[in-house]
């Protein structure tokens, strides 16, 4: 298996561009099903390109010099210090060139994406709001219910580790953990946010496809950190509404047909907070 992978890698690095293989990588990231994930893929891809370019220059020059200037009889090194003004200017220009072609571009892309997408929180009545409280070692979710307010009796609480969102609708989460630091990571959306005790963090994302996707805890949180797995179901708007309605019914919330067989971790009896409008 492993050798096939290595071979695939060689093939990819030699042909790629436009094909299926990505940048200098032979394993693709999980399928992007988010509105803005492409922005992150793009900045990574640009960085791949410039890195490959500058790294190749260094390595090729190094190898060329090693061959051309190898020690042999009759060949003498030249006594050059490289401290002249000419050289100082040359090296500063090269440094600036790297800065302009690499750093400034990446920074421009990143700042633009943050402004247009990741830090540009959606507002309005159609935004889905979810409160998330990770704990050792499970995810708890809370929806506002009919009154649109959090932290009261009619909040909707799905079964542990289960989150549903509607497709093509912006989702804002506010997250604060019960015990230690966790990190809400949804690889298919390319985003994550830490959950730190004592503070409420926020993040938004929007799905472009329905389906089942995983939530991982990215921050070490104890011995079962590795199996702190959440199940994110992206529903069509109708299915989502049906699911919300099922939560309103009395009794134990229904289990998804996919998910883990783990016992519930024991949800704290009360949690939830009034939605923070200005964070």
């Amino acid at each position: 298996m492993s050798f096939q992978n290595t071979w695939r890698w060689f093939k990819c690095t030699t042909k790629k561009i436009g094909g299926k293989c990505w940048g200098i990588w032979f394993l693709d990231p999980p399928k992007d099903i988010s509105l803005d994930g492409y922005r992150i893929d793009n900045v990574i891809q640009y960085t791949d390109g410039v890195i490959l370019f500058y790294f190749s220059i260094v390595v090729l020059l190094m190898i060329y010099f090693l061959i051309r200037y190898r020690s042999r009889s009759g060949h003498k090194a030249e006594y050059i210090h490289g401290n002249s003004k000419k050289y100082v200017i040359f090296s500063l220009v090269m440094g600036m060139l790297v800065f302009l072609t690499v750093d400034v571009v990446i920074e421009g892309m990143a700042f633009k994406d943050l402004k247009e997408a990741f830090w540009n929180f959606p507002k309005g009545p159609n935004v889905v709001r979810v409160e998330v409280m990770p704990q050792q070692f499970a995810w708890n979710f809370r929806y506002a219910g009919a009154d649109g307010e959090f932290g009261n009796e009619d909040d909707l609480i799905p079964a542990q580790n289960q989150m549903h969102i509607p497709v093509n609708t912006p989702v804002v989460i506010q997250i604060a953990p019960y015990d230690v630091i966790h990190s809400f990571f949804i690889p298919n959306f390319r985003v994550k946010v830490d959950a730190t005790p004592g503070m409420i963090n926020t993040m938004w994302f929007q799905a472009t496809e329905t389906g089942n996707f995983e939530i991982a805890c990215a921050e070490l949180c104890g011995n079962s950190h590795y199996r702190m797995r959440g199940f994110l179901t992206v529903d069509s708007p109708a299915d989502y509404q049906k699911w919300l309605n099922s939560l309103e019914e009395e009794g134990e919330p229904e289990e998804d047909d996919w998910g883990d067989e783990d016992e519930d971790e024991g949800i704290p009896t009360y949690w939830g907070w009034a939605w923070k409008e200005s964070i």
Partner: protein
Amino acid sequence: MSNHEQSFMSKYIFSTDHKVIGKQFLWLGIFFLMFGGFMAMLIRWSLSHNMQPLPWWLLGDILYQNSPVGVGIIGPDAYNQLFTMHGTIMIFWAITPILTGAFGNFLIPLQIGTEDMAFPKLNMLSFWTMFLASIVLLASYLLPTGTAAGGWTSYPPLSTPVGGIPGYGQVYWTLALTLAGTATLMGAVNYITTIVRFRAPGMGYFKMPLSIWGLFLTSILNALFVPIIAAGLIVLLLDLVAGTQFLVAGQKATIPGGDPLLYQHIFWIFGHPEVYILILPGWGVVSDLLSVFSRKPAFGYKMTALSMCTITALSGLVWGHHMYTTGMSPLLGKAFMFLTLLISIPSSIFFLNWLGTLWKGAIKLEVPMLFALSVMWVFGLGGLTGLYNATITADIYLHDTYFVVGHFHYTMAASVLFGGFAGIYFWFPKMFGKRMNKKLGIIHFWMSFIPLNIVFFNMMVMGYAGHHRRIFDPSVFEFLKPVLQLNDLMTTFAFLLGIGQLIFAINFVFSIIKGKKAEKNPWGASTLEWTVDYPIPHGNFESIPTVYNGPHEYSNPKVKNRDWISQSEKI
């Protein structure tokens, strides 16, 4: 100081001679390098052979006999302890003692031309504090619940009593690290004073070898930032043993006012400079060695030294790039990203100068040179991949994944280790009066360079595929299924890498016992340490030398018959 009679104890154990202390640090560092390296093997085994008993050659008959998941099997608790201690040991007990402790002690007085350190007794105290720290750290392995398991970063509240990790491992960890920091601080004060006050006549700052520049700047960073982490560790210790809750907040806190995020700031204000603390001596050594083995002055020496200074200054201003996902204010995030990216300017100048040194040289591929050249490769990859982590958007995806693990293994592990090996192979003749076996050295090089790249590069591949960090069993996640097959490949090459290091250990020990006797200046180097005969007496020089030349006087046409001239020889 003359060569007076000394007892065995004061000559080899409680010695105040910087050369002896340097060797003591070297032995300590190599011991922990093997120890931490073995832990890496166990981690790799667990990742590719999850929940399978360890084979005999990984000491399966001795280790984990009382494991709750089965005899000789690494369970999730043990796994967390392994990567926690692997990181801690490699950074603070292997790399720091070798690069700063061993090279710093051995090289500084010899290369700047003085008798000993400014404070020889403080120097001895520094080593023995480190020794005590090592005992505390190793003692935590004897605890029934095992060692610390909160990661080498030990973020609270996980690392405090509310985190749910049983036992006193974390207390031992915190104590040991505080002691190690104290030892480092003592060394730093000593190095700075020695370099500022005791340079031989004629040895201006810009006549110092670049190794000394690296060690000097490292010491400045240590002196500035180790006290900060020490403060953080003491606060953590109070939370652990005195019932305070400085670093606990949220629903588990019973006292208001604590803040876990405070620790992260403290940790990374120290933690980012720590990267440069580790690598600056390596850069210095590599810059010097490229010059020696190209038989040509270090290209753009002043620019290299100034680039190192610039990076040192910037390193204190960029810690926030470790915290983009903590909910940091946008303005702060942008500032940290900009400052981080600035580092690429001095870094580019660095690489240009390294290439410039090779250009028109007469390059000899001795073993130290192979390792020095490989630093260009691994640090090139490590430094460039830092760009992804500096970029806020890319980091939102890549943070806390194996990508970060691969990146810092390239910068901290590979670059520093290869720089360290280059230095060990280079100065071995002056340290022990013997030559190391060249053939074994070349085998060691290739057995390090190839497997290391396969292992570390694939860490980044895995991270890009979404593999998050510190996962005992990645097969839990559906989206990681395509990544799993890589684990076998990586484990195989990690074992090869481990075997390669055994070759080094054998070469090292046998060369000390049976190696060929080394002549005074086997590499034809021009720095001052090569002007003294082995064994170098306590007090180093018969009379303090006067320095006339720069540190890289190779192929000077005014010198007849040979292609080097010592710093203390008049042309």
